[in-house]
């Protein structure tokens, strides 16, 4: 009798345990599904946003280009910069859904200058110098910054230090009073006779991105020995 009772109690206890294990795994499954759904929604939003940017890029690039070839070149450059920035984000996304932030300013600059490193091989290996403290950049800021740096690099390749074999570009930065201070300095390029009187589309884009989107400040300096850009961005905007 007592053994029967004990056996029954044991069975009942086991059933309760099984049920709670089942419930726990059900909860875990629901949580995972919920996470999956959030991730899908977030991805969908990002893809839509990228399409909207790409569409804007096509129309803007069409308006400022003189020939179809010119337009294709400008557009491909911008789309590639966008793709490289996105690649940095993806590389940080691990299989378990964890995000390891590895989109640093150094990596971004290397990615942006990558199309120009072939040029560097033929000349001085130190044509492009990137130097500053390691700095993680958040996803939102990454796209804008990638496009800004791409526009500056394109400009250097068209008119500045990357347009001739001997030109040099130094990109250096430091963090001061909660701001990233980045200096883009071109030397030994073709030389500048006078400050341009009008701002091109590329330049307007850079200004809008730095001031409007990243809440920073921007100064261009044209000296006979080369072009410089001084960029200041609040750190909290960079990490968002």
């Amino acid at each position, binding site marked *: 009798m007592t053994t029967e009772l004990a056996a029954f109690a044991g069975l009942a206890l086991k059933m309760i345990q099984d049920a709670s294990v089942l419930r726990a795994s059900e909860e875990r499954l629901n949580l995972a599904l919920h996470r999956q759904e959030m991730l899908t929604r977030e991805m969908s939003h990002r893809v839509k*946003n990228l*399409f909207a940017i790409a*569409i804007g890029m096509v129309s803007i690039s069409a308006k400022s280009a003189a020939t179809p070839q010119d337009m294709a070149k400008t557009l491909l450059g911008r789309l590639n910069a966008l793709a490289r920035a996105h690649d940095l984000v993806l590389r940080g996304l691990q299989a378990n859904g964890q995000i390891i932030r590895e989109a640093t300013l150094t990596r971004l600059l290397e990615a942006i200058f990558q199309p120009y490193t072939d040029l560097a091989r033929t000349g001085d290996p130190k044509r492009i110098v990137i130097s500053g403290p390691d700095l993680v950049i958040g996803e939102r800021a990454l796209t804008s910054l990638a496009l800004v740096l791409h526009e500056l690099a394109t400009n250097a390749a068209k008119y500045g230090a990357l347009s001739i074999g001997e030109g040099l570009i130094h990109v250096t930065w430091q963090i001061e009073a909660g701001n990233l201070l980045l200096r883009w300095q071109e030397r030994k390029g073709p030389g500048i006779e006078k400050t341009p009187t009008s701002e091109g589309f590329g330049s307007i884009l850079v200004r809008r991105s730095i001031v409007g989107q990243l809440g920073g400040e921007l100064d261009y300096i044209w000296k006979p020995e080369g072009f410089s850009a001084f960029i200041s961005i609040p750190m909290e905007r960079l990490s968002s």
Partner: protein
Amino acid sequence: MANAGHGSDVSLGRDALLNQVSVLIVENEPFIALDLATAVEEARGKVIGPAGSVREALMLIQQHLVQAAVLDVNLSDGDVTPIAELLIEGGVPVIFYSGLALPVALRERYPSASICKKPTPPVQLLHKLVALMATSQSEMELGEAGGKSGETPAAKESPAEAGLVGRLESPAPKWGTRAC
């Protein structure tokens, strides 16, 4: 291409669409912002902005007469709610342009707000804005009933000063029931 501006099928029907109406553009993605700004200019509208942040947009609203607005929802320093409220309460026709749904607070307050989902071609967005302005104008004239009409109120005027009492009393403004 530079020569594709006139006479191409893309620009058909754009001319004089906005007829000097001043349109505030609030959008923090530079390519989208510049694309919208160019579309407004090609439709003979006056561009205010583009503003990329709430702060910048508020400043522009204080400085300029805003007669219509295209608003992105997520800006670099927060969501667009304060700007939207200021404009809508001031009777300014507003189109939201976003890849996401409106924030809950805005959706509940303005259930029939006009939304164009990203991406929408700027020309299509402007056509919707013009339609919205026409509806909003005729409603305003009804609401004013004998008051001075024909002038779109600036956002800085309070609703009472702008003669919008009739309009604000109706629980849900009728304009904009469809998404792009």
